[in-house]
């Protein structure tokens, strides 16, 4: 710990006069009390603390600017943009199908939701929403619900770690691993899957998936139960979370909050029920609400939502068992031409398909080449599709000018919106409560900054 009057890493203040004579402390580990002593010896009345952007408890590269009076936060602001990678702009230079591989990287804990929102938007533009095969929709629901559980497990786990409870994190990640195994088995990748494609999904489930899912469900249920036993009535957890980060219904509506944060106020708003997509209206599940509107309520909402997701996954498994159907739209002008198959080195074009395009049919080869390199054209217009991601309303606004690429693809990421509530949740509380409040929003900076 040291005091610098000239800080080589400091950004230049916009108002040099105001910054004149300000003391800058850089904290790189060490004892907080030393800093407090050092600061109090200067008789400063207010301290502005920059938490992050590289801080283990800020969920990535979130920067929190806190003005403190002792341990009390008098003002809190969130600074974002450190992970901005221009995904939306990049998508304008790729085909509609390739766009999936970009948007999946936004919120890297909920890749399936971005893929689904984008693909449903494209399908709305193409007018093929009703032609998506039943099996493809069921697989989409299955993958989205597994992603929801894995996202909630990371949200709960890292939230626990930030409070100092390492076991919560290890259990959370251990259970997530079970889901990751199935997701990897199906898509070939743990994250950034690019599995949901315009028109359906890229490849059918490999043999044995349904058995693996059925085997996983009780294990995951057991794991969540273990976490619940550890946390729900834990006096330390309750002491840290009850009444912390409170945002009531009026606040949530004003700030456009969705997802577990909104449902923790008691409003049962869930797009899967109120504006169903992918056939969610045919599944049997409940929308979980709590009324405490605090960090503890959100934790409990997440736990209960995981059980509901497991219910949906079980129903998906039953439906997939009975429905062998195709997983890609029948229209050959849209559907990906290659039939993928699992080879010794992972997924690739099936040998039958290669034999056909290389040996039998010149037209099939041309078709494959054109569709893969050029892509399909989407009629001009715009569409907005919202899905209920693990964090709230994930919206995708797609604009087409009739070409093979999006003219504009905008994602309304729930975390981006929800981070606006940091000030409302943290001001007037303690510094330590900031961590809990931010963790209860479960923001992922990849999605916030895009």
């Amino acid at each position, binding site marked *: 710990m040291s005091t610098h009057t000239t800080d080589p890493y400091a950004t230049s203040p*916009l108002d040099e006069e105001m910054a004149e004579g300000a003391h800058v402390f850089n904290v790189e580990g060490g004892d907080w009390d030393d800093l407090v002593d050092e600061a109090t010896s200067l008789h400063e009345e207010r301290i502005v603390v920059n938490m992050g952007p590289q801080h283990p408890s800020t969920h990535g590269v979130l920067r929190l600017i806190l003005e403190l009076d002792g341990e009390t936060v008098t003002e809190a602001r969130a600074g*974002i*943009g450190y992970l*901005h990678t221009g995904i*939306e*702009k990049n998508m304008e*230079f790729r085909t509609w199908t390739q766009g999936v591989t970009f948007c999946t990287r936004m919120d890297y804990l909920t890749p399936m939701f971005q893929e689904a929102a984008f693909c449903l938007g494209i399908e*709305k*533009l*193409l*007018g*093929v929403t*009703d032609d998506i095969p039943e099996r493809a929709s069921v697989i989409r629901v299955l993958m989205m619900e597994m992603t929801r559980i894995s996202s909630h497990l990371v949200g709960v786990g890292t939230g626990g770690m930030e409070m100092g409870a390492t076991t919560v994190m290890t259990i959370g990640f251990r259970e997530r691993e079970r889901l990751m195994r199935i997701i990897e088995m199906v898509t070939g990748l743990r994250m950034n899957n690019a599995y949901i494609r315009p028109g359906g999904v890229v490849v059918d489930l490999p043999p044995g998936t349904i058995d693996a899912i059925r085997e996983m469900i009780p294990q995951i249920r057991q794991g969540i139960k273990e976490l619940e036993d550890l946390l729900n009535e834990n006096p330390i957890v309750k002491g840290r979370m009850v009444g912390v980060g409170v945002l009531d219904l009026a606040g949530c*509506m*004003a*700030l*456009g*909050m*969705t997802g577990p944060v909104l449902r923790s106020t008691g*409003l049962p*708003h869930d*797009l899967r029920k*109120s*504006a169903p997509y992918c056939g969610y209206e045919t599944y049997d599940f409940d929308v979980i609400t709590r009324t405490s509107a605090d960090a503890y309520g959100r934790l409990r909402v997440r736990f209960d939502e995981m059980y509901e997701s497991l219910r949906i996954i079980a129903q998906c498994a039953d439906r997939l068992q009975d429905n062998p159907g195709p997983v890609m739209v029948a*229209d050959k*002008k*849209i559907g990906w031409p290659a039939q993928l198959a699992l080879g010794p080195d992972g997924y690739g074009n099936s040998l039958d398909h290669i034999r056909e395009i290389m040996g039998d049919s010149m037209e099939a080869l041309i*078709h494959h080449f*054109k*569709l893969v*390199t*050029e*892509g*399909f*054209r*989407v*009629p*001009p*217009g*715009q*569409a*907005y599709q*919202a899905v209920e991601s693990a964090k709230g*309303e994930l*919206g995708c*606004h797609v*604009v087409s*000018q*009739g*070409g*093979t*690429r999006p003219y*504009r693809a*905008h994602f*309304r990421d729930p975390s*981006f*919106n929800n981070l*606006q509530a940091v000030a409302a949740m943290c001001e007037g509380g303690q510094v330590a409560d900031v961590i809990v409040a931010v963790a209860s929003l479960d923001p992922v900076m990849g999605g916030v*900054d*895009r």
Partner: protein
Amino acid sequence: MSDSQPPKTPKPPESSQRAEGTAGTGLTATDIGALDRARAGEAGEPVTVGVRSGMWGPSLGGDTSGYGGLEKPILFPGAAARPYGEYFDEVADELERALVGGSASFDEAIEKVVVDRGELTLHVRREHLLAVARALRDDPALRFEFCAGVSGVHYLDMPGEELHAVYHLVSITHGSRRVRVEVSCPDADPHIPSIVSVYPSNDWHERETWDMFGIIFDGHPSLTRILMPDDWPGHPQRKDYPLGGIPVEYKGATVPAPDERRSYN
């Protein structure tokens, strides 16, 4: 896929203007008069938002080489005529009623109503945006209490209305009804009133749209950059934003910027 027709004609939504919208018009690239009329947005006429040129298929003539300078107008769905279908008529009627006695009537405030692909879009004149937003939020029959943010779109080839701000409103009270509000402004005067006073959640969304498109939201509490660094020049998601090529040189040639490479479009 060399055919310039869309792979599949979208099914007309129950309500829709769409089938006659795109299929019925005999517009060709050379018919400039028709383009102007289309831009005026007469009922049912599709709106031309630009002209696409590039590699085209045989539907526009015998030239399939792509080097013949083939061009095609980009037609967005035009204004819809009553009945709009679904809950759209009710929303329009209630909005008309809610705006009575206010600063502007429905016809003054709403440039046109578009129904496309099962979605309702209200094109609002920018000077009346606040009044419309307030009516949409506050009127008990409308109650669009949730704004899912604003998304900018830059239409390079629409003189006088290059920049569009597109708002997505949801009414949770009325079972997740959705309406899209679209506002445009010229590039030379990129001002649109901020609706943060009506929808506080739009704060960051408007900052993002300013950051990426340079639309100035008048009345925003602190319109600063949010994703790009504070001292960044330009607005990256505009279509005229210069993209850097990769300075890899091979025998005197460099790799051009992504928007200048030869590509399908």
